[in-house]
């Protein structure tokens, strides 16, 4: 199953890449380029890394712009960063609903997962997907398939750290 897919997908990609790299006219080189691209797995990895860096950076820059706007209007920096993450979460939720965020995630990878917008996407996407199973066991329950572990581990580790602080008396 996987092998047949691997054989089919590169040929399409290779055709596009050949057009981009203007190998289009040189028919003799295309099988060779095909072979090289099949052998070397690194190029999509590097591309993924660059996209993750760019998209993650852009999301954080948007957050910084929102923080700066709040600070300019006389909100404390700590409060401003809380508000900024709320706004980012809300924006990402709407983007998920409109289907924009999934398209972004397809090429951005961790760039769209690791920021807090990815957490929002992890809440909203299953909520929409399991709408057909009803509001209680569909939307409300499936909302936390990915966000649940995040919240559970987060609260647990923070409580453990806090109690260690308490015992050590720091």
């Amino acid at each position, binding site marked *: 199953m996987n092998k047949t897919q691997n054989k089919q997908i590169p040929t399409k990609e290779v055709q596009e890449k050949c057009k981009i790299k203007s190998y289009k006219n040189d028919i003799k080189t295309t099988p060779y380029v095909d072979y090289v691209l099949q052998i070397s797995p690194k190029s999509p*990895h590097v591309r993924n890394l660059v996209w993750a860096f760019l998209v993650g*950076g852009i999301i954080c820059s948007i957050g910084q712009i929102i923080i700066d706007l709040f600070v300019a209007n006389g909100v404390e920096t700590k409060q401003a960063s809380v508000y900024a*993450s709320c706004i980012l979460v809300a924006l990402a939720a709407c983007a998920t609903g409109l289907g924009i965020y999934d398209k972004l995630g397809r090429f951005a990878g961790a*760039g769209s997962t690791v920021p807090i917008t990815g*957490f929002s996407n992890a809440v909203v996407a299953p909520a929409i997907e399991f*709408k057909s199973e009803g509001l209680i066991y569909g939307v409300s329950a499936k909302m936390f398939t990915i*966000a649940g572990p995040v919240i559970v581990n*987060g609260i647990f580790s923070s409580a453990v750290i806090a109690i260690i602080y308490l015992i050590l008396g720091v």
Partner: protein
Amino acid sequence: MIWTNILKAFLMGGFICFLGQLLLNYTNITNGKILVFFLVLGAAFQAFGLYQPLIDFFGAGASVPISGFGCSLVNGAVEGVKQEGFFGGIKGGLEATAPGIATAIIFGYINAFLFRARTKKK
């Protein structure tokens, strides 16, 4: 001044996402585990007081990634311990991160009412 802030946020946020993509590329870790991993990593950093300096310097570059979420969980819990002792530590973490979680839940519910599931194209 504002532009340097944005540049710092861009570089740090990009770097953290870059690390996440490295994990995605070269290990068998899934997206959900990445979220948990970075959250716990941020919490562990802040347990030693190492993450807040990053937020102070890089701004949103460190606070917007999920590790910043972990950091504010720990900050809330530790502040709770200082103010109210044991029970402050129990409630403090969730108290500090409640705005983000609540926004996600509220907008998730609204969006589930508004939108239908899209057929996934491949």
